[in-house]
């Protein structure tokens, strides 16, 4: 027998192994009884062979020989490993279940031990996954899951319970008639040497607690959940960061998976063992429930969209809302109704600003309005000579506002009287930013103005090559401004001289935000850009699917910005990586506001929407009667926003 070790059927290519792991050639005979026919597979411990039992002379009785190489150098340790191997082989020999291969024999030759097993004619599920491309039918996977639960339940009910410990697609054989058989009962693990040095790759299917050395029936339930997840989604957990199933429920990757099945798989994949199914029996029942539900569906094929019946029911409910019968605005969520609303004489595209208990907002009816923030009561209005699209800016006792009549006005907060004006050569859609006692604003006359906020005297002006509709941001001694000429300019705050400029591929109407050394803004070229504040170097850019007119809001390292593609984006400020995006269902040009755990913005479709900033999920939605280009202002639990339906709304935040 010794010579067998020296004969190599085919030298395995490029492994770090020597003779120890030589593969037995065809025709090799072990124990004078088992003749090797072919290699069925190669594992970490050794090969699996198909062999013929020579003791049966009349018939060709086939069996599988599972080989395990004992690499432990210490002779005493080696003997101990063989003893454990034999003990476990004996336990398995006592099992009797159709999904467990029969053990006929076991023996040890030199450094190798062998199990003689029933030969299973079929294919393992991992091979099946790699040979096919289509998603498996959820019903088929559920059927496999039920069968596996059945055999796990049988194993767990032994005394002491037997833990399979290595549930994964490659250890599940599928034989004819859709019958499941578990292979590889993990006794090979007795011979595993502890590996040294850095390794790549994880087992993917194992529960977190297994890495503490604990193995119990709950671990098998997790690994079965991981196996079902892989079978349902084709997402190979060995290629993903470990323990990330909770982030990607099967239904997210395969819409054919029902809510119910999704819930069963996710429950088995809970990281906390206590939150999983209490037993394989319980999981089996839950899986069986999924099948029963399915069979009621007329076609028997998984349906991913809600049935028409359900949809109509929801519509009826919405129509029944009492709000619909009143003259007031309709809110889909009955929970959000305006605290007050104020009607102007034309569209409100300007964004409200609250200071000293007063809301200041401009309207296309030419007026700048001052309203009581609590009640919405009118305080005063100041008529300009043109519509107002820009946002007011409050500084000390005055409010600054630009108008389509080309003039920037300073109006006293208390009385609504004019303090000074600064005429330009174009319509003013840019809003004034006041820093260091100076107001900075742009005009359609291509210029950026710096004006003394106290007196209205111009200090300098900077010439771009296109209209300036973006609102300036002020950083460390530098004013940043976007222009319709595709550029973002960095202008010295003292002198008005250009420090650097950056060219996008389309207009920059979005107003820059300065945060942590970065200048962040959107462009009509669909990108959100982050530039180094000092040099103008691009640090990152993130592409949306439409123009970005909305101005980014940066809060605690996260950039919130809307796009005309209808999504609100949350991006990591350091890398531009998308954290989430929210489908608003309509273009967003409004600048998001963020307060506490929520973001607020308007849509061209006319909605004011609030989303949770952690998850990007909708909190509430309020429907106005016109497009909402105005940006929300959040102040003391209220959201103030204007709409093209001529109204200013105060909504509970």
């Amino acid at each position, binding site marked *: 027998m010794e010579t067998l070790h020296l004969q190599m059927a085919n030298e395995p290519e490029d492994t770090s192994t020597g003779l120890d792991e030589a593969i037995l050639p065809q025709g090799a005979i072990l124990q004078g009884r088992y003749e090797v026919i072919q290699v069925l597979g190669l594992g970490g411990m050794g090969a699996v062979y198909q062999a013929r039992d020579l003791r049966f002379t009349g018939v060709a009785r086939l069996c599988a020989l599972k080989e395990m190489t004992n690499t432990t150098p210490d002779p005493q340790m080696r003997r101990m490993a063989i003893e454990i191997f034999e003990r476990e082989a004996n336990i398995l020999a006592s099992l009797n279940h159709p999904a467990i291969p029969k053990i006929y024999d076991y023996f040890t030759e030199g450094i190798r031990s062998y199990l003689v097993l029933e030969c299973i004619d079929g294919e393992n599920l991992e091979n099946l996954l790699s040979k096919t491309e289509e998603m498996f039918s959820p019903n088929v996977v559920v059927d496999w899951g039920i069968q596996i639960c059945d055999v796990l339940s049988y194993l767990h009910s032994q005394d002491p319970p037997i833990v399979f410990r290595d549930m994964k697609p490659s250890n599940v054989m599928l034989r004819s008639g859709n019958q499941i058989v578990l292979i590889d009962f993990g006794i090979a693990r007795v011979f595993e040497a502890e*590996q040294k040095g*850095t390794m790549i790759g994880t087992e993917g299917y194992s529960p977190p607690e297994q890495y*503490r050395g604990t193995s119990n029936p709950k671990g098998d339930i997790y690994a079965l959940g991981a196996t079902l997840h892989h079978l349902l989604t084709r997402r190979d957990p060995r290629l993903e*960061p470990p323990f990330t199933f909770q982030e990607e429920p099967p239904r997210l990757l395969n819409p054919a998976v029902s809510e119910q099945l999704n819930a069963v798989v996710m429950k088995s994949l809970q990281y906390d063992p206590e939150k999983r199914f209490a037993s394989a029996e319980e999981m089996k029942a839950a899986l069986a429930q999924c099948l029963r539900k399915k069979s009621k569906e007329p076609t028997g094929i998984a349906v991913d969209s809600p049935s028409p019946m359900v949809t109509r029911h929801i519509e009826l409910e919405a129509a029944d809302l009492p709000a619909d019968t009143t003259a007031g605005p309709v809110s889909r969520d009955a929970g959000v109704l305006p605290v007050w609303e104020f009607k102007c004489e034309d569209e409100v595209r300007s964004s409200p600003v609250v200071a000293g208990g007063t809301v200041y907002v401009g309207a296309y009816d030419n007026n700048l309005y001052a309203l009581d923030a609590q009640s919405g009561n009118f305080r005063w209005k100041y008529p300009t000579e043109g519509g107002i699209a820009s946002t007011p800016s409050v500084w000390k006792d005055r409010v600054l506002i630009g108008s389509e009549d080309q003039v920037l006005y300073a109006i006293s907060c208390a009385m609504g009287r004019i303090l000074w004006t600064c005429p330009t050569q174009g319509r003013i859609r840019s809003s004034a930013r006041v820093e260091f006692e100076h107001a900075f604003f742009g005009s359609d006359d291509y210029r950026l103005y710096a004006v003394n906020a106290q007196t209205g005297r111009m200090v300098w002006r900077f010439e771009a090559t296109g209209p300036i509709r973006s609102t300036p941001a002020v950083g460390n001694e530098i004013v940043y401004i976007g222009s319709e000429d595709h550029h973002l300019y960095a202008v010295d705050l003292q002198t008005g001289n250009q420090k650097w400029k950056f060219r996008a591929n389309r207009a920059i109407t979005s107003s820059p935000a300065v945060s942590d050394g970065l200048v962040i803004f959107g462009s009509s070229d669909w990108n959100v850009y982050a530039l180094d504040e000092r040099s*103008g170097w691009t640090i990152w850019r993130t592409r949306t699917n439409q123009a970005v007119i909305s101005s980014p809001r940066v809060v605690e390292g996260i950039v919130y910005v809307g796009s005309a593609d209808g999504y609100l984006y949350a991006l990591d400020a350091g890398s531009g990586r998308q954290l989430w995006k929210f489908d608003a269902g309509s273009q967003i040009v409004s600048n998001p506001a963020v307060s506490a755990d929520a973001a607020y913005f308007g849509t061209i479709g006319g909605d004011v929407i609030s989303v949770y900033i952690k998850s990007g999920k909708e909190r509430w939605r309020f429907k106005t009667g016109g497009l909402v280009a105005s940006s929300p202002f959040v102040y003391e639990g209220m959201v103030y926003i204007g709409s093209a339906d001529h109204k200013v709304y105060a909504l509970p935040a």
Partner: protein
Amino acid sequence: MNFLQKVFSRERPAVEDTRPTAPGATYPFNLNSLPRGLTVARMSDIGRQRERNEDCFVALDITLHNDDGLTPLGLYIVADGMGGHQKGEIASSVAAQVSARHVIQDVFLPFLSGHDQENPHRPINEALIQAVQSANLAVYQQAPEAGTTLTVALVFGHKVYVAHVGDSRAYIFNQATLHQITHDHSLVARLVELGQATPEEVLTHTHRNVLYRAIGQGNSLEVDTYLKSFPVGSYLLLCSDGLWGMVSDTEIAQILTHAPTPQKAVEQLVAAANQNGGEDNITAVLVFIGES
């Protein structure tokens, strides 16, 4: 005597250099006496138990002084290779070289050719991700059975940009506190996140060497990127697990606080790792940023 101490400093117990840090401890050297811009110290050591050094590093910096003042630009890379038959060394050096070449092309050369408005350069994070992904493909093709970690740090002005895969680490040491920038792509790090292992267990866990993401494992690769400020008077430390696995964060902080120069600091860090066992190759690249 002083000379002898220096000669044998590697053999000396690191204990001497790790006196408890007094609150508000300052550097033993005068910040103003250091050169302006970047001062770099680097060292790689085989350790005490390995037969080969599979770590690799790159350090490159230029300083541009013009009327805008002094702008430092530095590229620092650490890669820790793994895989038998010397493939680990190949993987780490291929990764370091390929990624360095890409960053030089996409960042260093445009930086030196000035700001070309009509030909905008590639955004820095895209350049870094591209560099790491190119390294990934090169390793995958040239050393398919091997892999490597790869941590690429670009210092630009007072900011540091890091692209990272694996379990080598980048730290910022500022005001006597060590901040880990990178996140280890290791099984144990995931277990800690899930509360299934304690941060202390990371150093002793039986699966501490298992990575779930590394360079050279396939065509596609997700790259983590970070952007941190790098204030005057602070250190950037890049190191392989041969350092952080052997020397605790507290000990690293103490060495950085008390070492007389950056070069002494890396020598002491490596000595401490060897002192504590030297189980793996040890590589440390330490960058000090002075006034600009």
